């Protein structure tokens, strides 16, 4: 994969906002003193009159976003996932979710791959928190192509959307020339009959790599990318599970309440299937280089291969 282009999805987020600013005049961007890190600074540079720094005050930022949306704007409220979904949870629930306002939450630096900053900033609970809010759409794009497309899809959708982006550069696996983003639709990246691997975000590239290794060893894995965790694509999950009879989920998030749980919610009702979840196992993260941490937490193609073979 050495020649594959790598871009962090937070970069994709900032670039997409700046690119779409001309097309969507009601688009405004809020940040909480992290514009350099969330990459909303790219938008700020191009549209300074439509960028509002809220300072280190995430609760108020979410409320301001709600008020802007109530008056016709399309606000993107941006900060780290830890503060967007964690600190501001109740404001997101009551001021954005309950009135079902058209606010887009751009949450960057999600998951273990935050790296050196360590546990206080490695949010592995955001998907679980956000998907419990009625009417909240939750998107976790896998690469630059998907992240950019997801930003525009979020603008075109009327209602609250939580978007999860990463700090670490991720390989670009989707071809921008042909890629089409459909909200709520899973993407089958590889056909297979022996096992289904369902991944999201940064883990999609690892799942694809794992499937190639498995194929060389005679295991034919189907790979599904779930970019929209809520509403989840029940059909693609059920059809694949019925075909292979074994499901392995992979996410850079707690195994409690995230993609794996969402997949289990689908399967337990329609076609009970054995599911093994790879994710952060009810533990906090810690400091270290992102790539090494991902390996240590089992969020790697190697561990996907090993786990799949054991199933």
């Amino acid at each position: 994969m050495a020649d594959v282009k790598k871009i962090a999805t937070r970069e994709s987020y900032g670039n997409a906002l700046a690119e779409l600013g001309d097309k969507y005049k009601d688009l405004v961007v809020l940040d909480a003193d992290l514009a350099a890190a969330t990459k909303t600074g790219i938008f700020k540079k191009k549209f300074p009159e439509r960028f509002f720094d809220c300072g280190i005050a995430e609760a108020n930022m979410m409320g301001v976003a709600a008020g802007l949306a109530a008056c016709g704007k399309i606000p993107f409220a941006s900060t780290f996932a830890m503060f967007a979904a964690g600190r501001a949870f109740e404001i997101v629930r009551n001021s954005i979710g309950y009135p079902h306002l058209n606010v887009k939450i751009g949450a960057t630096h999600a998951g273990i791959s935050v790296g050196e900053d360590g546990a206080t900033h490695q949010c592995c609970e955001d998907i679980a928190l956000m998907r419990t809010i009625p009417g909240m759409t939750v998107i976790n794009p896998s690469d630059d192509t998907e992240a950019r497309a997801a930003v525009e899809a979020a603008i075109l959708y009327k209602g609250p959307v939580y978007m999860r982006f990463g700090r670490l550069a991720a390989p670009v696996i989707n071809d921008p020339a042909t890629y089409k983003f459909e909200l709520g639709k899973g993407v089958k990246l590889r056909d297979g009959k022996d096992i289904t691997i369902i991944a999201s975000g940064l883990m999609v590239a690892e799942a694809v790599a794992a499937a190639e290794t498995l194929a060389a060893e005679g295991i034919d894995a189907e790979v599904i990318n779930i970019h929209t965790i809520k509403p989840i694509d029940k059909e693609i999950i059920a059809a694949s599970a019925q075909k292979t009879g074994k499901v392995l989920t992979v996410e850079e998030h707690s195994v409690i309440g995230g993609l794996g749980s969402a997949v289990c919610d689908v399967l337990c009702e329609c076609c009970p299937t054995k599911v093994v979840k790879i994710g952060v196992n009810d533990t906090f993260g810690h400091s270290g280089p992102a790539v090494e941490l991902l390996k240590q937490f089992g969020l790697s193609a190697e561990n996907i291969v090993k786990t799949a073979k054991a199933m």
Partner: protein
Amino acid sequence: MDAAKKKALEITACKVRLGIIEGVFNAKSGHPGGSLSIADTLTYLYFDKMNVSPEKADDPDRDRFVLSKGHTAPALYSTLAQKGYFSTEELKSLRHIGALLQGHPCITIPGVDMSSGSLGQGISAACGMALAGKTSGKAYKVYTVLGDGEIEEGQVWEAAMFAAHYKLDNLVAVVDNNGLQIDGRISDVMSPYPITDKFAAFGWNVVEADAHDFDSLEKAFASTVEGKPTVIVQKSTKGKGVSYMEDNVSWHGAAPNAEQYEQAKSELEAALAALEA
């Protein structure tokens, strides 16, 4: 304010208070004390100050109102009913299962601009509405009413900082200083005093008013300045208009029984009859 206008407002406020009692009595729960303390303020806003009406409920240029102290929804609903957004009959099913009127304001109710009730959040939404107006070049104003206990929430001060920083002079916040919160006197529970000095330090234009005097309210709401958000710290009486509820913390979140309901109703009806005489 001329005498006829003042009397008309006093009559409407009295009807708003009757609606509050009707709603809370029929709900067998709710918050009458803090609703009665803002009845005059909401009457002034909806019947004199604000550019709103049921006929142009979705007009993007209308003024906006956010009840940040959302538990006093009976006051808002009763005012909206008087204004014609829905029938006063709706007040009788306040908080009932399947009813239009929820325990706390909900944006889907006609005339309600923002869901609220979790304290400290309404003022942030009001800031967003004011900012939207500024960036769109619209002339509308945004009003929000907070409780004096509510300003113990940290988010209020995040919003206070934000409003001053972005010079939201189209925003007017009212702090309803009735001096009581659930656990007792605000000065005993967790004093937010001095309220005026705190907002002044955050860069706001600070005005004081008597919450039960329409001349005072008119003067206060006219005291906005350019370049700064305005806060009106209004001295009010919790439970105002119902003798046994006045300045009594036990009426923060309790409904009157049948006997108490009759007494409240007869007191308010007598006040109304005196005004209409």
